């Protein structure tokens, strides 16, 4: 306080300075814009008076907006400066270059300022009439909901209220506010577009602009932007969605000590923009036959890097449609119908690469078409026409992708096999065969299972029969064994008869058959198995005495020897006969003994 007093006594030169400032966020002053002239009054007691007239502009307010004091102490000498700023708020009204001042403040005279008022600020984009909302349809006026009361509202705009089907339109939601700070803007849902295809644009205005509605200045920003494509003719309605906006409401008051003060109070508002109606016209009639469905401005190009091919080797041609409009709905004409049949072309898959810009959807659609040359030769790939509707000119227009002449050389394999290997419908009819109502598989039918049942039955039958046969056979051998002695004696009798008839060969034959036969029957062995070794082994097994066996073998040897060496004395024949009878008797005895032993055990 003391310093202040001291400083006041030692005041430096007082002055008044004028300064021109354009409105916030702008460099130039346009018609309708706010701008400011500040009076900086330094070290003077007097206050400036409100001027009566400013050339080219209308005075809005005149107020003290700030004060500043500074102290400086140099080498023990303290100086103090105090300045008060007054602001003259003006609205530019007429184009031109004007000067203002000098003004008289107390006994001080200010400098002179020059300012230029240019044209009214252009809206940033065509069809975005944010400049003069007074001209809007009164029915489409903004809705105030909550505590909006004109301090904050939303306005929906559409770039054109009358458009063609499929034409790209821009729908924007503009926020207008006088609040200082907006903390949060959130939409509860998207706007309701009835009968439109919608692409949301991320290109919203981050920079604030200022505009005046009914004499009040609002900060404004585009908070949502949609590119919309009407899908049907008629009056289509767009219903605005509700936004929740949190703001700081600032209240100003005058404090006797601190001067002008303000406090901020949070406030939440629910605001809905106005509804809009778009009058959609159908595309002009008649539509060309080859209309591609595209509305906008397009250009088609074709790319085929190489014009020499081989049969049966897939090649690729690229059609690219670039431009703005409903790119996603552009269709290529039927290439299969255009191309020569020797080049089989497959349905392309579109690859849409579109970006949603401020006013339209732009980008490209790529159709990668692969085709297969089926035959050798020179062929022309025709130029491909794309017909679209240009809403700007209101006419159907055509863009052409150039065609190519291609040469197809011989590939691997013959042409025939390629066309055969290539899939195509085979229209030839087949033999009808014999139609049936039931197509029951064999496994579900009984006769099939006979293939299983019958062999088993046959096998079972045969084995039963075989068993019986074996049994019967076994009985037969037993009989033979029992009758072996009788048979042997019968044969011996024959041998005796031969001896009496002096027939030596017959005698020995009969003797051998009597002996072998006896042994074979007794041992149940077939004649093929009758050898000396087998017989002696079997006899020993049956418990026949070794002596009797060697006697039998000896006799057999003797008989065979005598049979094949005739000329022996006939006297020995009777001896052999007796020996034979004796051997058979002793063997019979031995078998009986062995059977007795076996039964005893």
């Amino acid at each position: 306080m003391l310093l202040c007093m001291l400083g006041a006594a030692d005041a430096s030169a007082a002055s008044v300075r004028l300064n021109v400032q354009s409105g916030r966020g702008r460099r130039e002053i346009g018609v309708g814009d706010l701008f400011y002239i500040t009076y900086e009054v330094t070290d003077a007691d007097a206050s400036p008076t409100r001027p009566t007239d400013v050339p080219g502009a209308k005075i809005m307010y005149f107020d003290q907006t700030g004060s500043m004091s500074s102290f400086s102490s140099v080498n023990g000498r303290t100086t103090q400066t105090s300045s008060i700023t007054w602001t003259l708020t003006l609205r530019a009204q007429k184009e031109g270059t004007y000067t203002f001042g000098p003004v008289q403040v107390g006994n001080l005279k200010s400098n002179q300022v020059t300012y230029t008022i240019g044209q009214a600020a252009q809206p940033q984009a065509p069809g975005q009439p944010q400049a003069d909302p007074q001209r809007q349809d009164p029915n489409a006026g903004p809705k105030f909901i909550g505590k909006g009361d004109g301090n904050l509202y939303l306005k929906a705009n559409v770039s054109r209220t009358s458009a063609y089907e499929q034409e790209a339109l821009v729908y924007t939601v503009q926020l207008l506010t006088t609040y200082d700070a907006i903390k949060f803007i959130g939409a509860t849902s998207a706007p309701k577009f009835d009968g439109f295809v919608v692409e949301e644009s991320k290109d919203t205005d981050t920079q604030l602009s200022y505009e005046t509605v009914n004499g009040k200045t609002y900060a404004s920003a585009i908070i949502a932007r949609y590119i919309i494509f009407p899908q049907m003719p008629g009056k289509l309605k767009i219903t605005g969605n509700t936004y929740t906006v949190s703001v700081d409401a600032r209240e100003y008051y005058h404090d006797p000590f601190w001067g002008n003060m303000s406090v901020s109070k949070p406030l939440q508002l629910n605001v809905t923009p106005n509804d809009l109606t778009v009058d959609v016209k159908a595309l002009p009639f008649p539509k060309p036959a080859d209309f591609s469905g595209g509305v906008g401005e397009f250009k088609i190009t074709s790319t085929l890097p190489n014009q020499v091919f081989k049969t049966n080797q897939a090649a690729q041609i690229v059609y690219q449609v670039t431009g703005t409009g409903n790119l996603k709905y552009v269709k290529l004409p039927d290439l299969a119908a255009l191309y020569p049949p020797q080049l089989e072309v497959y349905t392309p898959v579109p690859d849409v690469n579109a970006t949603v810009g401020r006013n339209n959807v732009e980008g490209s659609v790529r159709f990668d078409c692969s085709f297969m040359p089926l035959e050798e030769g020179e062929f022309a790939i025709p130029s491909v026409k794309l017909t679209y509707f240009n809403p700007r000119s209101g006419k159907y227009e055509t863009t052409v992708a150039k065609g190519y002449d291609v040469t197809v050389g011989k590939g691997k394999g013959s042409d025939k096999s390629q066309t055969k290997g290539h899939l195509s419908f085979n229209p030839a009819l087949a033999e009808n065969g014999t139609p049936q109502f039931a197509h029951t598989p064999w496994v579900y039918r009984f006769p099939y299972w006979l293939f299983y049942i019958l062999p088993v039955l046959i096998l079972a039958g045969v084995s039963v029969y075989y068993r019986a046969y074996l049994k019967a056979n076994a009985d037969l051998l037993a009989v033979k064994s029992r009758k072996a002695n009788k048979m042997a004696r019968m044969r011996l009798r024959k041998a005796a008869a031969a001896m009496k008839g002096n027939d030596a060969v017959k005698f020995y034959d009969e003797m051998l058959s009597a002996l072998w036969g006896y042994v074979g029957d007794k041992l149940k062995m077939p004649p093929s198995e009758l050898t000396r070794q087998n017989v002696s082994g079997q006899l020993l097994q049956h418990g026949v005495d070794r002596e009797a066996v060697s006697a039998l073998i000896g006799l057999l040897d003797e008989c065979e020897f005598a049979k094949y060496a005739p000329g022996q004395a006939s006297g020995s024949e009777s001896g052999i006969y007796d020996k034979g009878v004796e051997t058979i008797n002793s063997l019979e005895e031995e078998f009986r003994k062995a059977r007795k032993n076996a039964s005893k055990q």
Partner: protein
Amino acid sequence: MKLKTTILCLLLCVADAFGADTLQRAESAYNAGRYAEAVALYNEAAESEGTSAGLLYNLGNAAYQTGDYGTAMASWLRARRLKPADANINHNISYLQSKVEDQNKAEQRGRRLAVTPDEPSFFGSLHRALAENVASDRWAGWGAACFVLFVGMVALYIFSRNVAVRKTGFFGSMGLLTLTVIFVTLAFMSARAAEANDEGVVSAFKVALATEAGKAPAQGKGHVLTKGTRVRILSEESDAEGNVTWVKVRLNSDYIGWVPASDIIQL
């Protein structure tokens, strides 16, 4: 008795002549390019005399020519069940399938979804190769042949005295019995596969898959399948009278959803 037989014979002959006549008329209609008439005649013949692989194949061809891919695919698939290895049937099925896949792809409007049916697992493809691609009767024939040989081998084992022959009989019969069991099992599997009712074909011009039975998706919503698409039928929903109204179908993991039963031909 004799008179009765004669009358029966005559009746059969008349029926035969009538049937052959219908088929001949169908064939001449087809060759003259009157495909719709051919379809009607083939259907008539199938109703009066039953079906055969050839008849169904021809019906499919005629339906294909009229543009009715749903009926065409269904007929060919039915023909294939009767004659799985037939080259003509398989050729036209795979041709139409690739065509339908292209159309389904075109219906996606830029979305990138798979249009081929589910890739079968190892066992799935084994099942397809053994049961679906070979007629049941062929397996049954092999099974019966093996069984007869098995019985022969058993006979060798029982009746022969020669050890080597008996060994052959023993091990041979073991092997043949195993083969018989395998072949008969395959014959049953193939028979089951031929009467499976989980296969269907889209008959409507286009059908959008609904996420819920009874609720057709909004215009432009839902993945679209075009006529002739082969699908697997997962489940069915019936109304109060027991008529199937909606079926849940699957093409692959991208295409699963409900369609009205009237838009599907169930095999």
